[in-house]
């Protein structure tokens, strides 16, 4: 069975400092990885997925299969980045798999 680990429950950084939210996974096959974000009083929403290889709101994440990691990074944190971040994995079964396995989440707090 697959597992997603986010080692930090809470991460506090100062505005303008770099941010790295860690995500490690265990899965024997080839997974798809995602980051979801939940801002205060808002719905959970997709932030980015590894196959897109894009930057969203200044965030990037690279899938490192050797280290089985998918860390979320941003060079300069903004106050509006304060939110709950969840890493998620979709096992690529080739037969149509719609389930996601989520990590426990990291609460990012950006200090003004």
């Amino acid at each position: 069975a697959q597992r997603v680990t986010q080692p930090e429950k809470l991460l506090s950084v100062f505005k303008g400092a770099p941010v790295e939210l860690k995500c490690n996974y265990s899965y024997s096959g080839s997974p798809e990885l995602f980051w979801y974000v939940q801002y205060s009083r808002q719905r959970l929403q997709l932030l980015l997925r590894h196959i897109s290889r894009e930057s969203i709101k200044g965030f990037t994440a690279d899938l490192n299969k050797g280290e089985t990691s998918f860390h979320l990074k941003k060079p300069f944190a903004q106050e509006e980045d304060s939110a709950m971040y969840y890493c998620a994995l979709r096992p690529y079964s080739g037969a149509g798999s719609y389930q996601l396995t989520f990590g426990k989440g990291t609460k990012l707090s950006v200090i003004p």
Partner: protein
Amino acid sequence: DVKVTQSSRYLVKRTGEKVFLECVQDMDHENMFWYRQDPGLGLRLIYFSYDVKMKEKGDIPEGYSVSREKKERFSLILESASTNQTSMYLCASSNRQGVLSYNEQFFGPGTRLTVL
């Protein structure tokens, strides 16, 4: 714009009551999901459905059942509510466009259920 709505934002029930949580989506999505969200535990999948009248158990189905009689509606049922089912419940939906492709899950606002 995808809209996933849940019948209640807050719900308070007593132990042993039967509880219905309703979720409706307006984008003709095939897939629907129920999660519970607990601090320190993240999101855990309770049940999901990829078609009308179809259902699959997720990671924590015990104590819950679901119903999907219409494509747009997915109900979560707590047959006999217990205090350990106090939680935030999130519904989500996604379309099924291509067997090998993943399609984003869109989430509802959540129902905070308290069982006394």
